[in-house]
């Protein structure tokens, strides 16, 4: 058996084991939670690169849990898309963990933070690697609950309110997903996703039960991914969490729990139809515009970034829903750029809060003089998300817009360009208010944040700057094309997977 295949469950088991170890020992030993919490994502990042290499070579790696083969056993597997997501998740999580080692010192009991952080990581990895529908639900709930607890980590008024809202809406989303799973189980008598796809394909289209399950999944995963009619929790929850968790929530959770699961199920299991595709296009376009317009009027730095996330998720869904190879490539590439860029921006917002104690944009000003590293990396993130040429975000938005034109959606393409301009306007306005101009009197004593926080921000800023290099043919074949191929092939892919 191949080595990667054999040790695939480690993606879930090691973060969980680390979390349990911290909960057992961490509150006694100082420094141990920080070490475990930083080393685990970093180590798994290297392993995810190995998995990426293995998936490009072998296509799919599958581990049979407990040695049981399907239909009895539960599978854990990785294909190109999973490996792509795993690399992003662990890269961002490692940077965030490095950042958190200094940032979290201002809270009491940092070990709880690391326990929940690692549980979130385990939940996300479980969602990404599982081949079983019910396990997807379980891991999703694990990650959501840990995230909900972390949103309330500060236990102030607004944080508790945001956490309650987040908890209620995400639980409702999960219950809709559970109803959908129940209906699909009744229709196919299977929980394995590949087998389910085969049976649905064999029974032919036009089943009312599958349509109904599809509607439930649309609502449920729409709530998880914060697409526009279901977005109410995001602008409250994302700013309320501590900065590292805002970065994880915005950069990773809505993507792995929302977008990845949404498109894995709709493209690979249920099958995409033109009607569904147009619904996603509309929701994506609506999210883009709503997020951008709402972000224009914000004065809270993190709240502005949260609305920006809403808008950029709209771009990703729009690109993936186009269904053309170019659109899917653009959507996935934008997913990567947005993960890195938005995590970076949330971390810089956290740095500003760490140094000055405020999140209000109109109270800041001229901070770049005192915090050069934060200012520069924040600018890099804003330029990547806003779409300034040498940065990665420019290329991904360009690809999405080209793909929209190519697919004949000229109106949507103009819409996307207009939203892109708005994005640039509000991000640059925020940058100008926070970092440019004259330094206010009260910020004379502000100092640059500690070394590890700076290092994490610089790594992310560097990747923002060089993100466009992923379009070089060799790297593109390795990283993006493998992932895009899974979504382009759609249900054909699970035919291969199902052929045990």
């Amino acid at each position, binding site marked *: 058996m191949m080595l990667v295949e054999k040790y695939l469950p480690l993606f879930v*088991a090691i973060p969980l084991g680390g979390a349990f170890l911290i*909960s057992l020992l961490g509150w006694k030993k100082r420094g141990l939670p920080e070490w475990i919490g930083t080393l685990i994502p970093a180590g798994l990042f290297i392993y995810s690169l190995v998995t990426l290499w293995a998936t490009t070579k072998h296509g799919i790696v599958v581990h049979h849990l407990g040695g049981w083969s399907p239909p009895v056993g539960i599978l854990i597997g990785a294909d190109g898309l999973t490996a792509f997501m795993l690399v992003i998740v662990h890269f961002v999580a490692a940077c965030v963990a490095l950042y958190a080692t200094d940032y979290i010192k201002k809270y009491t009991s940092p070990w709880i933070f690391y326990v929940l952080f690692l549980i979130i990581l385990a939940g996300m990895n479980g969602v990404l690697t599982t081949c079983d529908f019910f396990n997807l639900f379980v891991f999703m709930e694990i990650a959501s609950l840990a995230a909900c607890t972390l949103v309330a980590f500060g236990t102030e008024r607004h944080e508790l309110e945001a956490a309650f809202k987040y908890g209620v809406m995400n639980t409702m989303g999960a219950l809709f997903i559970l109803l959908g799973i129940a209906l699909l189980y009744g229709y196919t008598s299977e929980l394995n996703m590949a087998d389910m796809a085969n049976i649905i394909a064999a029974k032919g289209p036009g089943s009312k039960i599958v349509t109904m399950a599809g509607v439930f999944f649309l609502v449920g995963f729409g709530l998880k991914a914060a697409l526009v009619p279901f977005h109410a929790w995001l602008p409250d929850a994302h700013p309320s969490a501590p900065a590292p968790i805002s970065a994880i929530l915005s950069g990773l959770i809505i993507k792995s729990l929302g977008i990845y699961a949404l498109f894995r199920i709709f493209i690979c299991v249920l099958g995409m139809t033109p009607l569904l595709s147009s619904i996603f296009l509309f929701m994506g376009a609506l999210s883009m515009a709503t997020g951008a317009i709402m972000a224009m009027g914000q004065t809270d730095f993190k709240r502005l970034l949260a609305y920006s996330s809403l808008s950029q998720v709209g771009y990703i869904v729009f690109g993936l829903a186009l269904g053309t190879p170019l659109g899917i490539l653009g959507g996935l590439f934008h997913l990567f750029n947005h993960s890195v860029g938005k995590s970076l921006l949330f971390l810089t917002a956290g740095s500003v809060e760490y140094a000055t104690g405020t999140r209000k944009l109109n109270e800041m000003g001229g901070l770049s003089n005192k915090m050069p590293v934060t200012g520069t990396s924040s600018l890099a993130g804003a330029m990547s998300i806003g779409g300034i040429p040498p940065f990665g975000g420019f290329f991904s938005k360009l690809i999405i817009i080209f793909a929209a034109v190519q697919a004949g959606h000229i109106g949507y393409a103009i819409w996307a360009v207009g939203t892109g301009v708005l994005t640039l306007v509000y991000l640059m306005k925020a940058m100008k208010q926070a970092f440019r101009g004259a330094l206010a009197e009260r910020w004379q004593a502000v100092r640059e944040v500690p070394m590890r926080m700076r290092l994490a921000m610089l790594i992310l800023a560097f990747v923002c700057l060089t993100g466009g290099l992923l379009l070089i043919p060799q790297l593109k074949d390795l990283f993006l094309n493998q992932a895009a191929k899974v979504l382009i092939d759609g249900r054909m892919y699970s035919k291969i997977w199902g052929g045990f």
Partner: protein
Amino acid sequence: MKKIKEPGMSVIVKTVARLVARVMLLFGFYVVLHGQVTHGGGFAGGVVMALVFILIMLAYGKEGALRTFSRTGALTTAGIGLILLVAIAFTGYWRGHFFANFLGQGWPFEFWSAGVIPFLNIAIGLVVLGSLYGIFAALTHFHSEEEEKQ
């Protein structure tokens, strides 16, 4: 004469709780141990065991229960159970797969059967005991804070 308010409930409840507690604990342990041959198992048995301490807390008040089983103790119990669970899962790699059943299966309806499942049941029982009691103790913590304010 003003009666001094004792913590906890009336003397009937306290007596019954004292009599029942050990039997309940034994029964919970039985359910955990026989998880592979009867209905129930780690979760059900763990809940029964946690209920024992919750009963003590209801009958004797918070302080009395926390003296027998502290919050730290609950957290440690849950942590040990979880670590045990992951360790058993990792030991499965000895037979090539994560979570593989590496012990002999034995015969159905006998006590020593089903390989690692009894050990997994014990681990889960510890987790459920620790976490349920810990949650209950943590929720009473809020209550007492409010009383102190008054």
